[in-house]
C-alpha cells in the first residue's frame, strides 16, 4: 500500500526529472508513452487496495516540507520583485508572515500526514488515464515551431505528480504547500512562451492563486486556534464543532482555484500558453482541486448557511459563465468559459452534499475531465495543423478537417446531451433537489441548472453550426492525415468516453457509488443491467443506447452516408449567395459582463463573511 502510494506520487516527479535532464527526443517520447501503462496500472492497483488508508511519513519529510514551503514563497517573492508586480510581492510577504505564525503555534499531531481514500484513488486514475495522454500529445505538439520541448513535457508530467500528491495529503499545512506548488506549476506553464502577454498572464495567475493560499493559511490558523487540529480526518471526526470561519476560507480558496467569477481571468489567461497547458489545467489537474476540496469538506458543511451560499454563488457562475461564453470568438476561450461554468456545477453539487448530489459531482468531475482534455487536444490540433483559432476561422471545417470536427462534435455532445455523463449529473441534481423542494426552497438551484444547461447547449450548437457549413454538392470530405500521436490521443479519449457512456449504469453503481459511500452514505442509485435506477426514476437501457445511437448517427454519419441523389444549389429565394456567413456574436450580452462580474464579487464576499460567520 505504502509503496503504491509513494510510486503514484514519486514516479511522475522522477520521470519528469529524467526527461528534463536527458533532453533527448527518443527518451522523452518513449518515456512519456511508457508512463501511460505504468501509471495506469499503479493507480488501478491502488484503487483495488483496502481503502481508506492512513500512511505515516518519516519526520524528515515534515522538515523538508517546511523548508520547501518557505523556499517556494521566497521564490514567489523573488518573482514579484523581478517582474515588478506589487500584488505578487505583497501576497508572498503575507503568506510568509502567516506561515511563520502557523509554524510557531502549530502543535505536533500524531495523525498521519497522508490519507488515501477512494476519492484520492479516483484522482490517481483520472491523472493516469486522462492526464498522461496530454503529455503524449505534448511531445508531438511541441515539435511544431515551439522551443524547449523536453522542458515542457517534463513540466507537464511533474504537474501530474504534484496533483497526485495534492489529493493524497491529510495535513492541511501540507495541502497548502501542494496548493501553492500547483500555483507555481501553472505560473511556469502559462509563462512558458516568455513573451510579454504570457508573462503578464502568468503573473495574473500567480497573484490570484496566492489569494487562495492566503485563505488556506488563515483557515489553518483558525482550525488550530478553535479546534486544535489541522488534519482533514480529524476535522471529519467531529463535524459539528468545526469552525465555520475556517471552512469559509477553505471554500474561498476552492473558488479561486476553480476560477469562479470574479477570479476567472487567470484561467482565461492560460490560453496564451501552448495548448497542452490548457488541456492539463482544465481536465485532470489544477482546477479539479476545487471540487476535490469541497468534496472533502462536504460532510461538514452540508446543510449549513455556508453550503447554501456556495450553492448560490457557484450556481450563479454556472449560468453566467455559460452566457458570457456565448459572446466569445476565440475557441479556447469558449472552452475555458464552459469549464468555469461546469466547475460551478460540480462545486454546487458537492456543496449540496447529499449522497446523490455527491454522485452527481463525481460523475461531472470524471466526464468533464475526459471531455475537456479531449476538446483541448482537438483545439491544439486545429491550431497547429489547420491554423484555426477563432470560430470565424472554423467556417467549413467539415470540409477542411472532418475528423477533427467529428471529435470536437463528440466532445460537445458529451458536455450537454443525453445520455452522456454531464447530462446524468444534471439529471441527478434536478431529481435530488426536487426532493428538498417539499421542505425548503431550492427553486433557485433548479432554475440555475435548467438555464445553465440550456445556455451551454446553445453555445455548443452555435459553434457547431459555423463549422458544419458546407458548399453545395461536395461529395467527399478530404481526410487530411494527422500525426500518429495526435490520432492516438484523440481515439484514446473517444473510446473511453464512448465505452463509459454505454456502460454508464454499471460504471456509476460499481465505481462511483463506492467512492460516494466512503464520503457520505450510500446513494439511492443502482444499476439494473444497463439501466440506471435512481429513487423511483429509471433511465432505461433502451433510452441510453437509443440516444447514443441517434447522436452517433448525427455526428458521424455525414462522413459515411452518401445519398445517391441529385444535388442542387440552395434555393435561397433565388437570391445571390453571400460570400461569408458568420454567426451571432451576442453583443447585446457582452455589455453586461461588467455587471455580472460585479455581482459575483458581492456573492463572493457573502460566502466568506456570512457563510464563515465572520459577522
Amino acid at each position: 500500500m505504502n509503496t503504491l502510494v509513494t510510486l503514484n506520487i514519486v514516479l511522475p516527479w522522477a520521470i519528469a526529472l529524467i526527461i528534463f535532464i536527458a533532453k533527448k527526443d527518443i527518451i522523452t517520447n518513449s518515456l512519456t508513452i511508457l508512463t501511460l501503462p505504468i501509471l495506469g496500472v499503479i493507480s488501478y492497483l491502488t484503487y483495488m487496495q483496502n481503502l481508506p488508508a492512513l500512511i505515516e511519513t518519516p519526520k524528515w519529510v515534515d522538515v523538508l516540507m517546511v523548508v520547501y514551503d518557505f523556499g517556494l514563497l521566497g521564490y514567489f517573492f523573488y518573482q514579484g520583485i523581478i517582474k515588478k508586480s506589487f500584488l505578487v510581492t505583497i501576497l508572498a510577504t503575507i503568506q510568509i508572515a502567516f506561515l511563520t505564525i502557523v509554524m510557531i503555534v502549530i502543535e505536533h499531531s500524531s495523525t498521519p500526514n497522508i490519507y488515501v481514500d477512494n476519492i484520492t484513488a479516483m484522482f490517481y486514475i483520472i491523472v493516469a488515464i486522462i492526464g498522461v495522454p496530454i503529455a503524449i500529445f505534448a511531445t508531438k505538439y511541441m515539435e511544431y515551431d515551439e522551443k524547449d520541448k523536453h522542458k515542457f513535457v517534463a513540466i507537464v508530467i511533474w504537474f501530474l505528480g504534484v496533483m497526485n500528491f495534492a489529493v493524497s495529503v491529510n495535513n492541511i499545512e501540507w495541502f497548502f504547500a501542494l496548493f501553492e506548488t500547483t500555483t507555481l506549476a501553472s505560473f511556469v506553464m502559462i509563462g512558458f512562451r516568455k513573451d510579454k502577454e504570457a508573462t503578464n498572464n502568468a503573473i495574473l495567475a500567480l497573484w490570484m492563486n496566492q489569494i487562495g493560499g492566503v485563505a488556506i493559511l488563515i483557515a489553518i490558523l483558525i482550525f488550530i486556534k478553535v479546534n486544535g487540529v489541522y488534519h482533514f480526518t480529524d476535522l471529519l471526526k467531529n463535524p459539528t464543532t468545526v469552525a465555520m470561519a475556517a471552512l469559509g476560507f477553505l471554500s474561498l480558496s476552492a473558488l479561486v482555484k476553480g476560477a469562479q467569477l470574479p477570479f476567472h481571468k487567470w484561467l482565461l489567461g492560460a490560453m496564451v500558453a501552448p495548448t497542452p497547458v490548457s488541456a492539463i489545467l482544465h481536465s485532470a489537474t489544477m482546477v479539479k482541486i476545487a471540487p476535490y476540496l469541497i468534496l472533502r469538506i462536504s460532510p461538514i458543511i452540508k446543510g449549513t448557511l455556508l453550503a447554501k451560499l456556495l450553492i448560490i454563488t457557484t450556481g450563479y457562475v454556472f449560468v453566467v459563465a455559460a452566457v458570457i461564453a456565448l459572446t466569445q470568438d476565440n475557441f479556447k476561450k469558449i472552452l475555458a468559459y464552459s469549464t468555469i461554468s461546469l466547475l460551478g456545477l460540480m462545486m454546487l453539487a458537492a456543496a449540496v452534499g447529499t449522497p446523490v448530489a455527491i454522485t452527481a459531482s463525481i460523475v461531472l468531475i470524471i466526464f468533464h475531465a475526459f471531455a475537456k482534455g479531449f476538446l483541448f487536444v482537438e483545439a491544439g490540433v486545429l491550431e497547429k495543423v489547420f491554423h484555426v483559432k477563432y470560430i470565424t476561422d472554423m467556417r467549413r471545417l467539415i470540409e477542411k478537417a472532418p475528423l477533427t470536427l467529428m471529435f470536437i462534435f463528440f466532445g460537445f455532445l458529451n458536455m450537454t446531451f443525453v445520455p452522456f455523463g454531464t447530462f446524468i449529473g444534471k439529471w441527478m441534481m434536478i431529481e435530488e433537489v426536487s426532493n428538498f423542494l417539499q421542505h425548503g426552497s431550492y427553486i433557485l438551484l433548479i432554475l440555475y441548472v435548467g438555464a445553465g444547461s440550456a445556455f451551454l447547449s446553445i453555445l455548443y450548437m452555435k459553434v457547431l453550426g459555423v463549422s458544419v457549413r458546407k458548399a453545395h454538392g461536395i461529395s467527399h470530405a478530404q481526410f487530411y492525415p494527422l500525426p500518429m500521436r495526435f490520432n492516438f490521443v484523440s481515439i484514446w479519449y473517444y473510446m473511453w468516453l464512448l465505452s463509459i457512456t454505454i456502460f454508464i449504469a454499471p460504471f456509476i453503481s460499481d465505481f462511483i457509488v463506492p467512492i460516494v459511500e466512503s464520503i457520505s452514505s450510500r446513494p439511492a442509485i443502482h444499476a439494473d443491467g444497463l439501466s440506471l435506477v435512481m429513487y423511483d426514476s429509471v433511465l432505461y437501457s433502451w433510452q441510453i443506447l437509443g440516444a447514443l445511437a441517434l447522436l452517433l448517427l448525427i455526428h458521424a454519419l455525414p462522413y459515411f452516408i452518401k445519398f445517391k441523389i441529385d444535388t442542387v444549389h440552395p434555393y435561397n429565394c433565388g437570391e445571390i449567395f453571400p460570400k461569408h456567413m458568420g454567426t451571432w456574436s451576442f453583443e447585446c450580452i457582452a455589455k453586461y459582463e461588467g455587471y455580472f462580474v460585479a455581482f459575483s464579487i458581492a456573492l463572493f464576499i457573502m460566502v466568506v463573511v456570512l457563510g464563515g460567520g465572520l459577522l
Partner: protein
Amino acid sequence: MIGLIVTLLAPIIGGFVYGFERIIKARMQSRIGPPLLQPFYDFFKLMDKRAVMIHSLHALMGIMYFISEWFALGVLLVGNDLLIAVFFHVIGVLALVIGASSVRSPYSVLGGLRELMHMISYEPLMVLMVIAFYVVTGSFNLTDILHFEGYPILQLPLVFIAFVLTIPMLLQKSPFDIAEAHQELIGGPEIEYSGPFYEALYTGKWIEYLYVFTFIFLFAGSHYLVGAGLVIGVFLFINLLDNATARLDFRRMVKFAWALLIPMAALNVILLAL
C-alpha cells in the same frame, strides 16, 4: 401499452391533428379549408416528387430530426419519465439546427440561430413544469401522474398559464413563430428541404404536437375527460392566438419568457413548496 401504440401511430395521429388544425384555422378566417386528410395527400405527393438535396449532411439531418422527435415522444410515453423526456427533446433541436446551419443560405442559417433562441426560452420552463408536477404528485412518472387523484391544474395554475403561452414557441405559432417566420425567413430551417426530406421534417412537426399536448393532458391527473377538454381548449386557444396576433421580435420572446413566464412558474412552485 397504450403509450407504445400511440408512439408507433404517432405520425398518423399527428397527421390527423394537423389536418384538423388547418380546418380550424380556416374556419377562424372564414374559409372552408382543406380536407381533413390533406396532410396525407401532401405526404403522397411529396414522396412522389423527385428527390433532390443540397448535400447528404443536410438531407440526413432532416431525417434525424424526424427520428429524434419520434424517439423523444417514445421516451415520454413509454419510458414514462418526464424529466428525461424533456432532455431528449433537445436532440431533435440539435439535428434541426445542424441541418439548418450546414447550407449556404442565410434564410436557413438565420432560422437555425433563431431556433436556438426558441430553445433558450422554453427549455428552462419545461424543466420547471416537470418539477412542479413532481411537487404536486410526488413522481416524475407519467403513469403515476395519470393515476393522481386530484387535479394538478388547480395547484399549478400559473405553471399551466406559463406553459400554454410557451406552446407557440414550441410549435412555431404566432406571435412566436420566429424561427419559421414565413414572411421574412420563408420557413427558416425548412426552406432548403424538398421532397421526401421535407416530408420528414414536416412529420417531425406533427409528432411534436403530440409531445406538447401530452403535457397539457397531464394537468388533469386521472380525470381523463377533463384532460381531453383541456387539450381541446388549449388547442383552440393556440390557434386563435396564432390567427389573432402578429409576429414578435426574438428579443421580445426571450424577454417575455425570462421576465414573465419563468418567474411566474417559479413563483407557483415556491408557493406550493412553502
